[in-house]
């Protein structure tokens, strides 16, 4: 029992270690335009060893290697898409924080639209049905009083017969 408890650390903020932002100036390209492109590519690539970070925010060693690789490809004249494909060829679509639109992700990309249409459809159906149903709103005070009077009337009437 004890060893199990020992194994359960407290709230762990994995990989978000205390050090500052992960990308460092020595990695950056001299050309600010290319560097800006590289930064934007970094933000779309997932750090593989971290829990859920892009390689720009991660201070893992592999993230740094990938940032350097991104810059190498950018310098070599690759387009943004080519750089991403270069990494995808090695690690799969898993590295893309924005998954591509393909057979595996149709539901992911079409899902929000389906959900919206579904919700709107449900609302329309609900509305139609609700408006067709008889009005079951509670009686007004006046109606209650009249109803009570009627019931009282019929009660006395029954007694009479």
């Amino acid at each position, binding site marked *: 029992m004890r060893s199990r408890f020992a194994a359960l*650390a407290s709230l762990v903020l994995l990989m978000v270690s205390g050090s*500052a932002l992960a990308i460092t100036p020595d990695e950056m390209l001299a050309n600010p335009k290319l560097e800006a492109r590289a930064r934007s590519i970094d933000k779309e690539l997932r750090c593989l060893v971290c829990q*859920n970070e892009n390689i720009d925010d991660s201070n893992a060693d592999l993230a740094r290697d990938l940032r350097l*690789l991104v810059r190498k490809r950018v310098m070599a004249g690759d387009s943004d898409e080519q750089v991403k494909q270069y990494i995808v060829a*090695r690690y799969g679509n898993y590295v893309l924080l924005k998954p591509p639109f393909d057979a595996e992700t149709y539901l992911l990309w079409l899902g929000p639209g389906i959900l919206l249409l579904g*919700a709107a459809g449900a609302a329309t159906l609900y509305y139609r049905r609700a408006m067709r149903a008889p009005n079951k709103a*509670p009686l007004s005070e006046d109606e209650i009083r009249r109803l009570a009077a009627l019931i009282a009337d019929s009660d006395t009437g029954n007694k009479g017969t």
Partner: protein
Amino acid sequence: MIAEVGLFALILALFVAAFQSTVPLVGAARGDAAWMNLDRPAAFAQFALITISFGSLMWLHVTSDFSVMNVVQNSHTDKPLLYKISGVWGNHEGSMMLWTFILVLYGLAVSVFGRDLPPGLRARALAVQGMIGFGFILFILMTSNPFTRVDPAPLNGQGLNPLLQDPGLAFHPPFLYLGYVGFSMAFSFAIAALIEGRVDAAWARWVRPWTLVAWCALTLGVAMGSWWSYYTLGWGGYWAWDPVENASFMPWLAGTALLHSSIVAEKRDTMKAWTIFLAIVTFSLSLLGTFLVRSGILTSVHSFANDPARGRFILALLGIVIGGSLILYAIRALALKGGGLFSPISRESGLLFNNVFLSAAAGTVFLGTLYPLFMDALGLGKVSVGPPYFNMVMLPLMVPLILLMAVGPLLSWKRGDLPEALSRLKFALIATLLAIAATLIFAGLSSHSVWAALGIGLAAWLFFGALSEWAGRIGLFQRSFSDSLHRALHLPRSAYGMTISHMGMAIVLLGVAGSLAWRAEYLEVMHPGESAMVAGYRIAFIGAQENVAGPNYTAERGTFIVTRDGQFVAELQPERRVYANPPEPKSTVAIHTNFVSDIYVVLGDPGANNGHVVHIFHNPLIPWLFFGALMMVLGGIVSLTDRHHRIGAPLRRLGARFRPPAIAVAAASPLAVEHRPKAARRWVYLLPLAGFAVLAGFFIWRLHLADQGITPSLIPSVMIDKPAPDFDLPPLLASDTGFKTADLKGKVTVVNFFASWCVPCREEHGYLSLVMQAGLPLVGINYKDRPEDAKAWLAELGNPFKTIAVDAHGRTGIDFGVYGVPETYLIDKQGVIRQKWTGPLTPDVIRDELIPQAEKLK
């Protein structure tokens, strides 16, 4: 002694919860008032016992009683008092105690304020609260006992993660839980109403303020979490669409929908089945968040230590609570129809549209968060769904919602007048166009500024739309000033609440738009005396002072002077702290705010000549994001003070006395002939249940895998069945010749990436000789290592490799798709990769997988 008292009180509370969840329920079913009336004493007792238990745990933490495991693992004597207290809920066990404490607090509120509720409704609702409490107390006792003793007691504790030693995070969990658990009120009353088969205005009048309480707390909790992330993590952002963040955002979206639909349920006695459904969904999403954070099903930056055993327990709990309530819903929902009629253009319709968009948004966050899990379960491979996806899909859902937010309140109940409402928005439209034009003129025409202008225009539309609605209500500029003032003073507070909250939302929107469009960033090595220009500010680095002592840390403190046009603006002192217990680093950001924009300075690693990596952000309008969130909460609080909403406001006596007999009859027999639903319609109400069953299936599957040690972070290789990449690596040892791609041809080869700094490699190393013994050539690739370290390592542990090549920079590793050493590849005679193992090989894997597969390739 205190620990045993706490544990004993908790065990007693379990029994009281069992009592509370059965006796009043049976009483209500039989119409036995004596049994029903036991609900309030039970809730009182429950509260007293959990208070004793939670108080004991707090006492143990405050007095640093290191004979208790929970204190040892999460506390230390040198921690400031605030963090000794917040450390109670900074861990799994303690946070579950806080969860339960807040649950019984709400139970107490029902018994205190709910005296005037119909006894049957109250008894059933408290019974449901008792069941939830029972489940959670049982969970704590069986899997997460915080009172476990440790013997011998250590002299001191292990301390708390420095990132959690922060005022923002000290108060974030209590508010978050007040929100999550607060939705249990709406939930319990929804279940009670389903059992009774009746939802009347009294029900909605009770549920609405409590939903508002929960919504305010959750909004504040989420905003606090976001603020904490902004000012402590040093990344300059505030929302990362991380699964754990999404887990709090989903109940917020659903809760916001519930808040709005309960208005219709109360005022117009319609949309009842829908409101009940939202109440179930909102609380279910809160529970789901609790489950996701603790089960290890998803990978997240911030989560509790994962344990599949706990995951299974919470999943079972989820199954009972959510599954049970959805079954009840499917059976009873049709009995809840009816109510006031309204035209397609009316306040009701506006709120219905609000619900459509908010539900679709909650569903979208849900889909994006869990999609990787679904893909994985169906064997379709691994995907990541990150911020770029969410930003892209949420935008088209949010924009129409916000456009509508200005229009809806202008429509009257039952039948609204759209042209009239739109004509009242003339002023807002002009303000919107002016805001867009001003933004474009001020910021120049670029793709950034167009987006910013649209965002700011949207915010202006909402802000001035809300303002116009208020102006219309008081007849500003149409009546005499004194008349308007009189009306303004007598406007219901709930109306003010709405106006303030909607305006708060507009301000949040401004913050989002501004920070997305105009964030400026500077990242450079700075030496003392150098300065940086960021967004018109000159930020001079004066220097860094080492060994600054804090209460339980030492820091390196940088000093920066911010000036603008030669005028002094601020002195900023970001720090790099190293905490004593546990010895972990933490960077402390320094922020100067002028309430419109922030200058945000992060001190990074030191370099040569007293240089430091310095990261500076200029974050325009971010402070408004947090002000806006606070304003939303303020609106909620103002609304809560409305006489009409006052918690526990007695039901209108008259209405209670004159309960219409016709309704009572229908309620007592919900399946009476006149209400009998057509069988064909019933399946619609089974859909949520079916959806949940599928979801639970996915969770069970994932937990099962986790049991076998397959964590979600394991990524299958895409290199399998592809030719090995081109490489030509030098040898590690002088006696070798190096290794290149061509050397793989003609024989089946095993390639192993290893490094002396890799701990699991040491574990694996002893078994690697089994590969060569089986007659398979084993090639070692020394990954990102220093040759002398690698050689010393081999000298110590032996050399099981046929040859060893050096991949000093890890480039070949990346080409192979290596993400964590050790990794082992099986390559066939043609040089094609046929299999890959991530993590240390074991004798079993070598004997049962690697060797047989290699034999087949021969």
